[in-house]
């Protein structure tokens, strides 16, 4: 009996050790710290970002552990409250005085509190994903049989849930982050099982509107600015479509980062041998530092790491779907979040996506982005734990 008890104990503990996720996490931390350390060798800033990033990752690991104390059911029930809390913080940000929410680069996106700063939109991403997942789950329980009507109803709910934070973020205005929300919502909608016809109609409609809007901005940039789209956003879009039109200010940072990345060639220049200083090397342009330091091979390995993580999320989602669509959609939501950030950020560095201030999750320096990513990671980790437990019961 005693022996059995021991086995049960160790089994229970082993549910919480998800080797594949832990190994991936440790690899990302290593890449992140190495890259930030290298960026710091350019001596553009005084702060010790490596040390601070270690603090953020440690805090993040604590959060991951804390999340494991909740079970999926509790999270499911809490999801509306968490979502509305996120929305509330976004709303408070907009009406906060300049003293605590200073406008930086024309956008009011941060709470600047003594000692630290918070970007609420980063955290609201996770709460939104959570609530979207819960909403789909609830819908599927209520309407076991889907029809065009129920699908449309679900779609409407998902759109409303997404648009509330998106509109608040547009008001900041932070165009890039808002696009991330839309992308995540789009992915979840596709995966929610809503009828292709409805999705098709939605895609056609939205892409028509986007094309019209982009066309408008490119043709009439002055008019677009008058209509309230910030000048730098118009600039970025113009830059993307017509590189020769770029203002030197808009392209200078990018040009330096692009040159640095390219000069890494196949094997890179190694640690501490960066030749080209450029701004935001430790945050938005961290991939350029990786490219220059570790070359094509190192960069490809980092991309492969992300691919592995996404693959893990896909299989995890597929596996848990049967037991808990809620858990599966958390997985898919986090997958979408990572996918858009990684593709947009690396794509921007490589010159195939427009320049926006979107960090490379899990690698870029930044408290808010690290912590919010770690919350998402914690949730996914909880899903993985849940899945292991379920499997165990099944095989018993």
């Amino acid at each position, binding site marked *: 009996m005693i022996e059995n008890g021991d086995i049960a104990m160790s089994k229970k503990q082993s549910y919480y050790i998800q080797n594949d996720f832990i190994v991936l996490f440790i690899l990302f931390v290593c890449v992140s710290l190495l890259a930030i350390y290298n960026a710091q060798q350019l001596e553009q800033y005084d702060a010790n970002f490596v040390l601070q990033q270690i603090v953020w990752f440690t805090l993040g690991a604590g959060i991951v552990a804390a999340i494991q104390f909740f079970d999926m059911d509790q999270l499911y029930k809490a999801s509306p409250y968490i979502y509305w809390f996120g929305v509330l913080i976004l709303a408070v940000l907009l009406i906060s005085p300049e003293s605590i929410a200073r406008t930086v680069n024309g956008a009011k996106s941060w709470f600047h509190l003594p000692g630290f700063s918070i970007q609420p939109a980063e955290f609201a991403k996770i709460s939104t994903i959570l609530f979207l997942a819960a909403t789909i789950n609830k819908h599927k329980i209520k309407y076991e049989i889907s029809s065009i009507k129920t699908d449309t109803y679900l779609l409407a709910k998902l759109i409303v849930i997404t648009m509330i934070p998106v509109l608040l973020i547009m008001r900041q205005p932070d165009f890039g982050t808002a696009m991330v929300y839309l992308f995540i919502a789009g992915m979840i909608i596709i*995966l929610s099982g809503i009828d292709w016809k409805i999705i098709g109609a939605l895609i056609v409609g939205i892409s028509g509107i986007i094309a019209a809007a982009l066309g408008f901005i490119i043709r009439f940039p002055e008019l677009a600015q008058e209509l309230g789209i910030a000048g730098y956003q118009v600039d970025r879009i113009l830059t993307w479509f017509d590189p020769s039109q770029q203002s030197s200010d808009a392209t200078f940072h990018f040009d330096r980062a692009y040159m640095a990345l*390219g000069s890494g*060639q*196949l094997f890179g220049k190694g640690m501490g041998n960066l030749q*080209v200083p450029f701004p935001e090397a430790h945050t938005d342009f961290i991939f350029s530092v990786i490219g220059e330091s570790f070359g094509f091979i190192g960069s490809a390995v980092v991309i492969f790491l992300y691919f592995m993580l996404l693959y893990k999320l896909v299989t995890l989602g597929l596996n848990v779907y049967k037991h808990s669509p809620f858990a599966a959609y958390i997985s898919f939501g986090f997958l979408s979040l990572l996918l858009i950030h990684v593709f947009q950020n690396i*794509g921007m560095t*490589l010159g195939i996506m427009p320049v926006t201030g979107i960090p490379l999750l899990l690698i870029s320096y930044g408290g808010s982005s690290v912590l919010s990513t770690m919350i998402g990671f914690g949730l996914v980790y909880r899903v993985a734990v849940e899945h292991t437990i379920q499997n165990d019961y099944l095989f018993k």
Partner: protein
Amino acid sequence: MVKRNKKKRAQLPFRINIVFFVVFLLFSVLIMQLGVVQILQGQDHQDEIERTIQDTTKIPVPRGKIYDSNHEVIVDNKPLYSITYTPAKGTQAEDRLDVAEDLAELISMDSEDDLKGITERDKREYWYIKDEENKDKADERLEQLDDEKLEELGVEDINELSNAEAYSQTLELITEEEYEDVTEQDLEIIAIKKELDKAYSLTPQIIKNEDVTPEEYARVAENLDRLPGVNATTDWDREYPYGNTFKSLLGSITTQEQGIPKDAEQHYLSRGYSRNDRVGRSGLEEHYEDLLRGRKEQIQYTTTKNGTVVGTETVVEGERGKDLVLTIDMEFQEEVDKIVREELETLIREDPYQHRYANDALAVVIDPRTGELLAVSGQTYDREDEEISNAEFKTLYDAHRPGSIVKGATMLAGYESRVISPGSSFYDRPIEIAGTPSKGSWTQLGTVNDYTALSRSSNVYMFYIALKMGGENRYPFPNGSKASFNPAAFQEMRNYFQQFGLGASTGIDFPFESTGYEGPDVGPGLLMDFAIGQYDTFTAMQMAQYVATIANDGYRIRPHFLKEVRNPIASDEELGSVYRSVNTEVLNRIQMDQSYIERVQEGFRRVFHEPRGTGYNHGWNEKDYNPAGKTGTAEDEEFEDGRKIDLENLSLVGYAPYDEPEVAFAVIVPKTGKVSNRHPVTHEMGKRILDTYFEIKEERDEEAQEENSDQD
């Protein structure tokens, strides 16, 4: 129902597979693009980084100096030392305090001007940052602020204050006892730190540039390694050992802030000037800018794209500007200034009311053979300050009616136009043309010939020349009748005058000269006025050229200030080799025969030497340098509340010695009052100037002889 369920179950794996396939495609795109950027274009990017950029820096060189004819420095360069501070990025107040403390030991910054800028806040701040303990003490006080005080500040909690507000408040809490407890050394540190605080990162800020002593400069330069951001540099400024003497003609240069004149920006930029270069703005500094400016040292820096300097090469060796040697003899110049000033003073003091418009006295001394200007003096009296100051430029800028001194030119015009011939005589009595006032000489002189017309200054003789040139040949002229007049005579007369430089540019090496005022109307009466110097106006420089032309047997020489240009050398003691000498330049030879010119010269001699000559009573004939010349008095006027005040311009031109002229002069004192037995200001000036000239010449000859005998 069953069918639907089946379909639904199949939906998710299908869609997630599509999504995953898209993910795979997107990542493939990233890897491919990564390959393009890093492998295909990688070498290009690396080349781009290593491509070097060449920047040329131009280092200004000192301007050329200016010397007088005896190689005494008139315009020198004074080295200016300056201490600058260029903070690195992220420099904190404490860092600046460290630098200030070190600097305070090396330089002095405790003049009243420096210290009066120190505010109470500066002292509080100094107390706050100089010591960690003080800092903690003050911060603690802020934390312990009572509610009442907080309410006053409009906050409930101290953390609500912005950083700047909190800092101000912390400083407020420092007591007077604490912050007033500063030594003089502390005050100096505060003054220096205040200057350091003004600097923007990476931009040099001048901490001290006035009165930096060579010792301070050396001390700072030696200790640069422990003064991060501090630099010691040199610059120069113009220095004038002779003070204000001759300064208005030397001119000035722009300051670094003014840089090159905005209206001629392109002109300067195309000649390799930088915008903040100092250039000659007026006078000789402007005229000889090209010689004085020198050649900037050009250093080419080769830098890589990320700013590392990989090579330094001097492309063009710098060279200080060339030195100018002027024709002016500063010892003589100072003497002439003194003479002109004293005589003007004597004149004004004689009757300050009558002479209330006599503010200027001008004198030009020239070597008639070469055109070398020996002294150019202008003195002007400021009635408000009751002070006489230098205004040499007026000899070129101000034109006056010259009076009878022009009669030599009129006489020669008369000979040349064949209306008179040597020995022609006229009976001197007033002439009255219908409709104009009667015109006569200063007194009725009886019969005068060409010699006596000059020596006794007969206006009537000149009137007949003018009338005859105008086609009025009646002699004696029937007073009260109309004179026939050919207006072309005016132009003819002016043409003759211009051959002497009267009414023409003298060709002087100066950026500006007035050529005088040419009366717009013509008529026989006006031509008569013109013939005696009562119509057109001329500058003192023109008058000097005129008399020099007569002295020099009719050769009009270009007057000039520049004698030689010397190559720059490092030594301060001697001059460099001659780069260029200014040669005597004959502008023209007047048309008149040498025999005619000699008659005028003789007339000029008689002015001083014949008992009835207008200059005879002033002691000229006692001078052993045998002078010749011509006096002049022109009517001038000023208006006071619409009332005309009659005034007289007193003028005198002359040269010496009569047979071998080596010095010529023109003096004019405009707008003197009509006082009986007036101080003979022009004669006194003229005599003393020539006396001084020959005295100095004698001294120099003796010195030279002594030197020669020493050498033997």
